[in-house]
């Protein structure tokens, strides 16, 4: 479990700087350093346990469903990387304290650094591939924060976005690859996957898996052609660059290749993909580094090329190559980190990083110059420095492969060429910056940096020397551990001696040296040649691409979604036609075997009127008043149809609803245009006609198919239990108030809500009031004709009486609360029309929203009452009583329920119609008004 603490400590460490922010910069730095230092100590203390090729594990179950456990695993490779991450991390913390200027928040940088450190440690220590992926993405996220630390600079923002996009995309590909690995091996646990290399390599999905995984690795490690994000990540503060691009972020990709080496490597596909990519990257990086005038730019491209070198080594697939790769990972980390820091010092002291202006710093900062030069020579691969050793091994390995058959010689040659360039740019780094005349108008006169800013550089450069001179002594054991972990146990024979005799690799080195010097001192010609090519700025290119993408998306979307309701409807109806049509094609025969009713004159007449009405509504739809009248004819016919087929309740309801709807539409028409302009394109009319006819046909035939088939519905139950269980003869009504009373409750709720919503709509309505009808005829002056008034008044009591009657008989005969409610409402509306709003307002003191609420409340409480008797909601109760004179009569809970319905209906209808009516008068509801 001690293993868990290695990543956990830096995670906690993310809080430390924020807490220690108050203590001043130095204290904050030291405080921040404590926990990583502890973690480092912990790591080193674990070394004895992983001697040989063994590993130690720590596991906690997390998501069994995903086979994702929190599992950490320390072996040689993980050890090496942990040491690099923590060690260099500590140096960076110290360095950053002096690098960062006072106005930049040090704690924020530290917090981000710690998060990033945790993520990196998580990657290298993961014992589970999915978990590894988690941390992989976390490095993308935290590096986004680090690179965009100076978020107010546009290049910082863009650089960060580009980095997170490229590495994020690679990460997604990697996830795909990991999931495939999981599906192949049946587990994400590293041990399982490393053990089943043959299974994976022989599996049909191996190529896809490999490509996906490598995409992840290559994007992260800035391999060609994904290398372009790395140089722009230099917008980050130099300490960040020193960390991300020497030991950590970009090394994650290499780590992944090393980690999965036993599972994926040593196939031809692997060789082709990895080594050729590496080779290309090596060359591209080395070449372009030469042309960078920005100090950090040069280092960035040299990083790219060194990453390529290591990738190439992994690609070669020989055991020794793997060792060399691991070795170079160590060396590159040390000298590149120190170089970045040196560059940071120079930047810090000169206020510029442009090598055309920074010259002859030797005079001003000799000490720093020495450090920088040693590191640079290490980068160039000069003997007695660590870079030399690994580069020798590299050259040696390029000679040991024969994948390209007779053309295999190409690889060593190109490798040497790359060597030449790397020497050249290293020399440039030294000569341009420290010699080559005087500085050219720098913002400030350079001088040695503060004491402690140099310490990290000293340590790293010291390591370069030590490793370079006493390799086997200093780095031997660690290298052996790590390499054996990569190779899964057996180590090849190799010696870390400085002198292997006068052999081909040495010659290659010498060629590189001399060639490099030549190239540098004749650089003018190469520059001139390079000048002919247009300057390519990946940052802007990327931005352009993204913008194009966005533009394209908008373009496509406008084509698809033109904001036209008609199109949305057409799409929906088309889908309807498709699904129904596709199903109906399988219906063998339309007509079922159920006995059909004979045709008779009445029905035919009704049908004729019905269809005529409907078609007339369509044909005259542009003259809206006519259309409305036709519509009402249809409505009337529908109710007659219900009556004809023995459904009196339906007929009644349909009738009254029809009346109210008609009044409503009439009132609405007062505010809406009374004609519809002819504006539909003929093509649209055709489209709509065919669509509607098809749908009509489909629904009609389904209806026919159903009516002519017999079925056994559940409704016999209702017929049997209506009297006994529901206490009513009118089964339909009993279903409404009892069997399915819950539906009715919902239905009146809908009605009530609709009324409330309508009230709000009217309250916010800006009115458009015509003075006359479409043909310019002005409205009648006599708003409340006397005749109408008198008649309506005399009608009112009658109407109320009727509604009471309808209400009471509802349970046993056709009728019920809803119809009664509508009748009442209509009668009252008639009063509004006849007498005017003011007259009514004086007499009717009901606040309609409250009436609605009370209505629904009454029904709900009626239902809830049964809870008191321990019965379910809406359990009905009824009984027959005998009173003298009155005789037998029945009381039922259904009646109060229905009363609630009645109240809601009256309330809603009047709320809607009365308020709508008021629109025509001075009385209008206002937004803020209560109810």
């Amino acid at each position, binding site marked *: 479990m001690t293993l868990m603490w290695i990543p956990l400590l830096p995670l906690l460490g993310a809080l430390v700087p924020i807490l220690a922010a108050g203590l001043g910069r130095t204290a904050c730095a030291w405080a921040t350093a404590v926990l990583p230092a502890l973690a480092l100590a912990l790591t080193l203390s674990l070394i004895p346990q992983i001697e040989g090729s063994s590993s130690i594990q720590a596991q906690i179950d997390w998501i069994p469903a995903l086979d994702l456990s929190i599992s950490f695993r320390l072996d040689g490779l993980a050890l090496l990387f942990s040491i690099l991450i923590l060690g260099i991390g500590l140096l960076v913390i110290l360095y950053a304290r002096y690098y960062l200027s006072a106005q930049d928040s040090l704690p924020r940088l530290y917090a981000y650094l710690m998060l990033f450190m945790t993520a990196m440690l998580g990657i290298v220590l993961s014992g589970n591939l999915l978990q590894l992926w988690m941390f992989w993405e976390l490095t993308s996220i935290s590096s986004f924060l680090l690179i965009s630390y100076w978020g107010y600079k546009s290049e910082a923002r863009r650089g960060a976005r580009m980095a997170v996009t490229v590495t994020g995309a690679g990460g997604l590909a990697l996830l795909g690859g990991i999931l495939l690995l999981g599906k192949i091996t049946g587990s994400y646990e590293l041990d399982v996957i490393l053990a089943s290399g043959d299974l994976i390599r022989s599996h049909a999905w191996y190529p896809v898996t490999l490509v996906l995984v490598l995409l992840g690795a290559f994007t992260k490690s800035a391999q060609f052609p994904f290398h372009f994000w790395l140089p722009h990540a230099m917008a980050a503060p130099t300490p960040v660059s020193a960390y991300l691009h020497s030991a950590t972020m970009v090394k994650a990709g290499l780590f992944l290749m090393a980690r999965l080496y036993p599972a994926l490597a040593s196939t031809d596909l692997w060789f082709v993909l990895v080594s050729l990519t590496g080779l290309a990257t090596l060359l591209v990086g080395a070449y372009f580094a030469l042309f960078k005038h920005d100090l950090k730019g040069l280092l960035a491209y040299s990083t790219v090329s060194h990453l390529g070198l290591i990738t190439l080594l992994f690609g070669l697939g020989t055991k020794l190559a793997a060792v060399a790769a691991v070795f170079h990972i160590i060396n590159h980390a040390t000298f590149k980190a120190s170089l970045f820091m040196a560059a940071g010092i120079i930047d810090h002291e000169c206020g510029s990083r442009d090598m055309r202006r920074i010259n002859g710093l030797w005079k001003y900062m000799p000490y720093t110059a020495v450090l920088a030069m040693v590191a640079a020579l290490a980068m160039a691969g000069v003997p007695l420095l660590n870079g030399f050793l690994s580069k020798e091994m590299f050259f040696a390995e390029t000679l040991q492969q024969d994948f390209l058959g007779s053309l295999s010689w190409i690889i060593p040659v190109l490798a040497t060429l790359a060597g030449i360039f790397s020497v050249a740019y290293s020399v440039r780094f030294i000569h341009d910056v420290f010699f080559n005349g005087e500085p050219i108008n720098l913002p400030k006169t350079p001088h040695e940096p503060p004491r402690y800013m140099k310490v990290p550089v000293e340590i790293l450069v010291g390591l370069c020397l030590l490793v370079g001179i006493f390799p086997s002594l200093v780095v031997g054991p660690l290298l052996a551990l790590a390499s054996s972990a990569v190779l899964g146990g057996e180590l090849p024979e190799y010696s870390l001696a400085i002198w292997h005799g006068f052999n081909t690799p040495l010659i290659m080195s010498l060629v590189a040296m001399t060639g490099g010097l030549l190239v540098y001192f004749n650089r003018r010609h190469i520059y001139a040649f390079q000048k002919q090519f247009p300057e390519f700025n990946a940052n802007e290119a990327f931005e352009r691409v993204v913008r194009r993408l966005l533009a394209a998306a908008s373009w496509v979307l406008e084509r698809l979604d033109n904001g036209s309701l008609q199109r949305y409807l057409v799409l929906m*109806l088309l889908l309807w036609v498709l699904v129904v049509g596709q199903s109906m094609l399988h219906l063998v025969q339309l007509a079922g075997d159920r006995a059909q009713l004979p045709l008779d004159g009445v029905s035919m007449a009704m049908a004729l009127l019905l269809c005529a009405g409907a078609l007339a509504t369509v044909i005259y739809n542009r003259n809206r008043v006519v259309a409305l009248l036709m519509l009402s004819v249809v409505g009337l016919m529908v109710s007659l149809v219900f009556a004809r087929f023995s459904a009196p309740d339906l007929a009644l309801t349909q009738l009254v609803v029809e009346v109210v709807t008609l009044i409503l539409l009439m009132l609405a028409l007062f505010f809406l245009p009374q004609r519809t302009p002819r504006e539909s394109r003929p093509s649209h009319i055709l489209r709509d006609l065919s669509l509607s006819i098809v749908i009509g046909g489909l629904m009609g035939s389904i209806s026919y198919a159903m009516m002519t088939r017999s079925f056994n519905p559940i409704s016999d139950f209702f017929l049997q239990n209506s009297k006994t269980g529901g206490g009513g003869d009118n089964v339909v009504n009993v279903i409404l108030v009892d069997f399915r009373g819950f539906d009715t409750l919902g239905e009146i709720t809908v009605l009530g809500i609709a009324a409330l919503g309508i009230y709000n709509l009217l309250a916010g309505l800006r009115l458009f009031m015509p003075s006359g009808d479409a043909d310019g005829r002005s409205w009648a002056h006599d708003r409340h004709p006397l005749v109408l008034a008198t008649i309506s008044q005399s009608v009112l009591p009658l109407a109320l009486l009727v509604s009471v009657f309808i209400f009471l008989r509802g349970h046993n005969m056709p009728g019920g609360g809803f119809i009664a409610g509508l009748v009442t409402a209509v009668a009252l509306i008639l009063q509004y029309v006849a007498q005017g709003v003011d007259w009514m307002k004086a007499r009717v003191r009901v606040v309609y929203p409250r009436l609605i609420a009370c209505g629904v409340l009454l029904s709900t409480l009626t239902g809830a009452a049964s809870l008191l008797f321990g019965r379910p909601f809406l359990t009905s109760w009824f009984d027959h009583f005998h009173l003298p004179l009155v005789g037998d009569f029945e009381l039922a809970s259904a009646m109060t329920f229905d009363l609630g319905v009645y109240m809601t209906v009256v309330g809603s209808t009047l709320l809607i119609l009365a308020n709508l009516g008021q629109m025509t008068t001075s009385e209008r509801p206002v937004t803020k008004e209560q109810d």
Partner: protein
Amino acid sequence: MQHLIILSLILPLLGGLLMLLPPINVSRVRQRNFALALSAAAILISALLLQQAQQGVIGVYALGDWAAPFGIVLVADRLSTLMLMLTSVLAFCSLLYTFGPRNEDGSFFQPLLQFQILGINGAFMTGDLFNLFVFFEILLIASYGLLMFGGGKTRTRAGLHYVILNLAGSAIFLFALGILYGTLGTLNIADLAQKVQHLDPGEAPLVRAGGLMLLIVFGLKAAMLPLQFWLPAAYAASTPAVAALFAIMTKVGIYAILRVFTVIFGDAAGPLSHIAGAWLWPLGLMTILIGAIGVLASQDLRRLIANLIIVSVGTLLAVIALERENATAAALYYLLHSTLISAGLFLLADLIARQRGKVGDRLVPGRGLGQNRLLGALFFIGAIAVIGMPPLAGFVGKALMLSAASSVAEMSWLWPLVLGSSLVALITLSRAGSTLFWNLSGKPAEIVRANPVQLLAVVILLAMPLLLSVFAGPVTGMMAATAQQLHDVQGQIGSVLQPVTQMVEVK
């Protein structure tokens, strides 16, 4: 304690009604506090129901004491109670948000919110298809009302489209119900599932037509292509609290699809089993695509989030189309996450918009925010969650769903689209974030500070993905059990259609 089930519906209904009457309707403040109390109670009730359902027993509540299939029953199983819980949490946060400066005008707002909740809860709890229609209408009419709050051109247009489309949808719903009743002679979902199994194959095409028409209706609610066009406008137009609550509305559609096409047209439905998959799979995948395009094309934050919802819907539908237990479980886990996070982002977008002055939530450089750091951090967390990056729940959900795809065909369609849409989200959100919080054209005109209560609502919602991933183990276990119960059709039929419910024993 059976009555808990009905309580989950009576509570919002009575609450909404009482808010229309004195003494509560006299002041907004009173209404709000009352609503908050209701919402807290709702969370308690849902928690209890959820906890009961985790015992594995399916609670059946026979309304009016009429046993299924004759009466209407409410069914409290693992899935419905889970959705109930989700709704309650979401509603609570939306409600908290109404405590801020922008308190919606009109004394009907809070009641409508309650009725909306009633509709949603009812849709989740009911075991009867026609009753589902009724509750759909309740939640729709309430949402119409809520959507129109505040007024304004865009809102009116969006509202008009939304309403008309849904009215047409309701018509289709009724046709479908008619077909199912006219062929199978019943309305109870479990009973339908049972009747489908003994259906005369000659009639199968009719039932199939009805079933697939239901798919259209639910697809319209869920914003499935080609029925998703209404969503961005409507969600972007509605006030923040409403938009946050709407985050569950698409999930109502998805729930209905899951329920109907797993239980009625599930494994046991003979010739009609898995009729939805053939449509859901391509449509879901295309929905991801169109959503991603919308995400790229979005000019303002709200639309961006709305389109992200479409992407998540597409993903869910495509995974549900696999019609396997593990796929359903994965989808459910992701459903929880995506609902909560999109609601949180809607609220956050409003906070951001209000601190940015007149540029609002448009993705253009503007003045700095009053609380740049704070809101920036929240946005960062929300973005990571919604993109589906570790360590938040989005990543767990996506990993689960991706690994639920088994055959090469499934993988080669689902993976590129899901991963690609994640990349799109990554690109757009990183752009949006750096534009909103870093690309500043100056200091804020006047420092606007977020109302603490509203902030709390956002924080709660954004904390959910973290909790979901920390406790991913137990949660995924829960989802697996839920999916298992949902796919056990016979088990559901058995427990819903048992002749006597626990209630009747009281007699």
